[in-house]
């Protein structure tokens, strides 16, 4: 009897091994894709990268030595506006959810935040167009920044809430017991205790919108020259990559690879750093 139960038929054993290997193969395949992406960009990107890429304006196709200095600065300006708008609003809303919230209203805010997070980026672009570009009658750096700022809000909210909630209650109680007010407790005790996670979360958030192209297409538009001030159309790295990639010119393609390499290097290095900081922090907390 017991011997019969111990015997596992050949078919079952083979199925076991085959199916388990397939799952391993799928995992390997997915990770291979990542390395292929990195490899290709490294291979094509480094080759097309030169000093002039960072210092020169784009040149008409055929002329050597064109760069994307204006796109790099433009992306920086757009991301600056996005951060200045998105992070404080998201942070404070997160503070509200974690520290002050009642039940029903918090549920509504949380639900709507997730909803906003799921809105396709191109739709956010339409919204920014209707709210900023149309009233101003012009495409602008500001409009692009606002579009990305709105995209940053949901993640900022949820990151803040999550990391503030992870702060032990004893810290709050100790602070209140010493006579500190609630606001003082939140901003001088709770938030500093979570600062590492908060900063990393915001960096991840920034990295996510740094590669966004769709919302910029009809807000910041694009520009082959320096953008003066904040109310003029502005170039940005992602849009530049898009425009150069779909152009029919070989030297533009080379520039697109270089820009893609720079963008990916930026996004992935922020990601890796922030994730390592967060996971390192989690490990110490568990210990």
């Amino acid at each position, binding site marked *: 009897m017991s011997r019969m139960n111990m015997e596992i038929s050949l078919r079952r054993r083979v199925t076991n091994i085959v199916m388990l290997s397939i799952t391993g193969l799928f995992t390997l395949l997915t990770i291979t894709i990542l390395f292929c992406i990195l490899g290709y960009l490294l291979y094509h990107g480094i080759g097309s990268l030169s000093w002039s890429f960072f210092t020169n304006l784009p040149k008409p196709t055929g002329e050597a030595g064109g760069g994307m200095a204006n796109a790099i600065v433009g992306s920086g300006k757009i991301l600056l506006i996005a951060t200045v708008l998105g992070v404080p609003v998201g942070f404070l809303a997160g503070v509200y959810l974690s520290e*002050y919230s009642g039940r029903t209203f918090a549920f509504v805010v949380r639900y709507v935040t*997730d909803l906003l997070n799921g809105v396709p980026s191109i739709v956010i672009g339409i919204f920014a167009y209707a709210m900023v570009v149309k009233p101003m009658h012009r495409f602008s750096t500001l409009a692009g920044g606002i579009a990305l700022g709105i995209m940053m809000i949901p993640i900022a909210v949820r990151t803040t809430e999550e990391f503030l909630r992870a702060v032990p209650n004893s810290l709050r109680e100790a602070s209140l017991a010493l006579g500190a007010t609630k606001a003082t407790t939140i901003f001088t005790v709770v938030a500093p205790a979570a600062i590492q996670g908060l900063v990393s979360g915001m960096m991840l958030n920034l990295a996510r919108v740094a590669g966004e192209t769709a919302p910029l297409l*009809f807000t910041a538009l694009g520009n082959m020259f320096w953008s003066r001030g904040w109310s003029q159309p502005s170039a940005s790295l992602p849009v530049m*990559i898009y425009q150069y990639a779909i152009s029919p010119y070989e030297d533009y393609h080379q520039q697109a690879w270089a820009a893609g390499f720079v963008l990916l290097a930026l996004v992935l290095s922020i990601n890796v750093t922030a994730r390592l900081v967060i996971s390192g922090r989690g490990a110490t907390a568990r210990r």
Partner: protein
Amino acid sequence: MAATTSTVLDRAPEPRARGFWRRLRAGEEIAYLIALSAATLVLLIVGLLVYQLWISSTLSIHAFGFSFLTGSTWDPNAGQFGALPFIYGTCVTSALALLIAVPLGVGASIFLAELAPPNASNVMTFLIELLAAVPSVIYGLLGIFVLVPLIHTYLAPFLTATFGFLPLFQGTFYGVSFLSAGIILSIMVAPFIISVSREVLYAVPTDQREAALALGATKWEATWDIVIPNARTGIMGSIFLALARALGETMAVTMVIGNTPAISASLYSPGYSIAAVIANEFTEATGNLYLSSLIFLGLVLFGLTIVINAVARILILVTQQKGAA
């Protein structure tokens, strides 16, 4: 520090009636109001978003109504706007993406949650999540210059030779097509399925696995017959989440789908998607009806993703609560 403590102590015995103004001056109520208004602002932004989409598309809604969704002619010069080719393109590419990404993603998540040692699993998940951080325009770049040529030389001839009798794989493959867009999308959404499904699988209690193994099931049987059914709802949730991403994805699709508003049964033929047509034609839209029709498309896309996201969240929530109970 000492100064703060002493002022706080001084304030403590104040009568309650004056407490509110005191606290307001100390920043207490102001801090609360600021936090509350930030939370309200989030609601306001989403409200405004819906309102703007609706208002800006009324012209087109009044002109075409429901027939906008069923009309298959998109001719800006004639003022004819029908969204069917775009809806078709979005659905076909998303369906194709899921067809590839679901087995791949669920398979990989099984490996990561059930087989791989925890440390190795964490490292691999880390790498896979980096894949989700790659900007979509970079997927598009690789799509144009790497993936499309690869499909052209290897995959398409193979598919034609093997499944050529199906209408899906007939016609000439030029490169930009539903097929290319679907494959690129599948690579983009697989990480979402993997990381969410892995979490869901982890939430299945260990005794379920142990019970199955103790009864003589093989590892695969324990996983497939016991663990997966337990996590089914959550995995469905992750798939819906991926679907919502695929539907709204713009750049990568725009760069490889071919941007031709045509409905064709063949996956080899170029097409168009909702997001792609908005991205391409928005700045060139002349005339209010044209622009309004594009925004109407945005509204349709918005509605579609909202519904699918809501379903996804409910499914994931249900599994997590089941796991916690």
